[in-house]
């Protein structure tokens, strides 16, 4: 299909316009570094795009292009180390916590001011700039507004509105789009060796989220969980059944999240113990207990977020189902997200009106908002199924 940009840009699926901008900027930066005239480079960027569109992939590719003598060839040591996350002059803030606090921000500011070891750029990537607290954002302001000549800030967030106004007004904004289904399917086939039919299904089902598409294509459990979620619209006859379905959805998401969190948590605790020199049965060095306690706290917060994310994903799948219902009701000539459930979609479409489908989609969106606002997830999903049942 599309002729993909080579080198470090190869994994940016369906983002040709954004890639063109970043490549031009990298070339201008290189020209400027050599004292030649060039336009298009800025020292602070805000990359936005829907979840799974590849914000952090874009930021890393751009960082590699800045560090690579050939503008992101994808083959030299600079490109390799940036993409692997080990380049000395690229700092990636990849928080799994719910927020980035002021202490972290201050540490970043002093890191950004260092002269790059490789003599090119000091690149600061903040993957979740939407999680900067107000205080942390204020601590970053000066550094972003008046960076040293060799510092580049790359901030990523889902949408412009998610970032503090004072920060976003100091950045050049570049938005990524939801990648087209065919582009996602193509990359699954090319890079992950997925069978084309499975790739087409996964790309459709993931609605443009690349990571999710890869998961669906390669993990049968993920497919089964998704399938169970999409049976919810068919269990709404009785109130008790609807609430049961709500409970099942939350339970499944919790189980998935716990599994992920536990695996990660054990590995991290091991690593930290080794790092602190805590041997089996040995004495703990001073501060070790406190550090481990902090880690545990952080892991707890992350587990909460993983659970919310898993529920949110299920709700996105569910909204996709009702969008299909709406498409059938409107007789729109579009490809269904859930083509494999065409019969169920048509059944619901015939039994309801477009107005009721819109109300149902609203109920799902309201539940996502409520969970985002800290409402007990089970209660929010229960209220949603009540809304879906009412239609």
């Amino acid at each position, binding site marked *: 299909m599309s002729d993909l940009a080579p080198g470090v840009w190869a994994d940016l699926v369906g983002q040709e316009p954004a890639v063109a901008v970043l490549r031009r900027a990298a070339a201008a930066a290189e020209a400027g570094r050599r004292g030649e005239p060039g336009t298009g480079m800025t020292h602070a960027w805000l990359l936005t795009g829907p979840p799974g569109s590849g914000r952090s992939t874009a930021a890393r590719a751009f960082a590699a292009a800045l560090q690579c003598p050939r503008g992101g060839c994808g083959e030299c040591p600079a490109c390799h180390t940036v993409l692997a996350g080990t380049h000395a002059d690229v700092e990636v803030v990849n928080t799994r916590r719910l927020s980035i606090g002021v202490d972290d921000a201050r540490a970043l500011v002093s890191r950004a001011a260092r002269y790059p070891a490789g003599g090119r750029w000091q690149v600061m990537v903040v993957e979740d700039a939407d999680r900067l607290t107000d205080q942390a954002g204020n601590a970053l302001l000066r550094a972003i507004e008046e960076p040293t000549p060799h510092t580049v800030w790359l901030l990523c967030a889902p949408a412009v509105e998610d970032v503090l106004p004072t920060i976003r007004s100091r950045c050049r904004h570049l938005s990524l789009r939801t990648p087209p289904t065919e582009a996602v399917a193509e990359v699954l086939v090319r890079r992950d060796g997925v069978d084309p039919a499975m790739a087409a299904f996964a790309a459709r089902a993931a609605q443009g989220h690349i990571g999710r598409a890869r998961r669906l294509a390669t993990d049968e459990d993920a497919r089964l969980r998704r399938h169970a979620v999409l049976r919810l619209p068919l269990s709404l006859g*009785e*109130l*008790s*059944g609807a*609430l*049961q379905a709500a409970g099942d959805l939350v339970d499944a998401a919790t189980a998935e999240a716990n599994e992920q969190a536990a695996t990660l948590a054990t590995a991290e605790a091991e690593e930290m113990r080794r790092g602190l020199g805590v041997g089996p049965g040995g004495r703990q060095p001073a501060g070790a207990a406190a550090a481990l306690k902090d880690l545990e706290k952080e892991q*707890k917060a992350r*587990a*909460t977020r993983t*659970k919310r994310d898993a529920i949110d994903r299920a709700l996105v799948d569910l909204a996709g189902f009702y969008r299909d219902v709406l498409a059938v009701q409107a007789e729109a000539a579009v490809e269904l997200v859930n083509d494999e459930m065409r019969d169920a979609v048509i059944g619901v479409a015939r039994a309801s009106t477009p107005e009721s489908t819109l109300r149902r989609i609203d109920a799902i969106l309201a539940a996502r908002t*409520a969970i985002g*606002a*800290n*409402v*007990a997830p*089970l*209660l*929010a999903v*229960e*209220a949603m199924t*009540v*809304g879906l*049942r*009412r239609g």
Partner: protein
Amino acid sequence: MTAAPGPVPLTLVTGPEALLRDRAVAAAVAAVRVTDPEAEVHDLSAVGLEPGRVTGLASPSLFGGTSVIVVRDVADAAEEISDELKTVLADPGDDVVLVLVHPGGVKGKSLLDAARAAGAVVVDCKVVKWESDKVAFVQGEFKAAGRRVAPAAAVALVDALGSDLRELANACAQLVADTDGTVDRAVVERYHAGRIEVTGFKVADAAVEGRYEEALRLLRHALATGSDPVPVNAAFAMGLRTLAKVGGASRTARPDDVARDLGLAPFQVKKARGQLAGWSPDGVAAAIVAVARADEQIKGGGTDPVYALERAVTDIVAARALG
């Protein structure tokens, strides 16, 4: 308290702690169902039991399969029933599992002796009296749920709710459901400051039963004595959830069966059945939506949490009036 790994033909559950007795019976039934999911369970009270009923149930069935016969209140059995039970337990037959439930004490002692002589597995449900035993009970509850509770948190929970084991078990179940990770003292204090959990459920019961003024009064009292609005609202949600689930189950099924299917305690089923009169499914649905809205208001901080809860109580009572 733990059940034998496989079904045993004769079990004697005895002792004054009702919660432990209920659990021992449930464990004995569950042990049978592991090997025979189709087993027929007959849950009887010795009081008013028809003579010959147990003998009939214990005689070999044409269709095979295990028959579980639970006889409760055997201390109050009439003499002929007691004699009948002694005969059956002496030779119960191959596919019969007999569970006798006795509240302890000397009444009906000859039947207990006969059961012991016949080799009954005895489950002793002693009163959990000392604080250290209650703390151990709380720790066991969390362990059984695959969770951990800090020792200080277990002590705090017993301090707040120690009088009744059922209340304690219920509070543990709620903490398991509502929190993640190790339960520490801060969590317990947040949930149970001033016996909040009981109060929260009391407010919820009053609202669900349509006692509007009492619900408002209890609510104000709870909040005035330092209750956190979050668990109060969680109690509303739990009450309505239970109501909806029990409302969807068969009205004629035995509470224990319904409780097992829905993951509730039998007493919750009995209570919900009593509360269901006056409610329609649409009413319960509307009340759940109102409570979800209150949760958002309480946590969003935009609305006064006290007002949000009063509004929730009002909405619950109004939803009940929908019929």
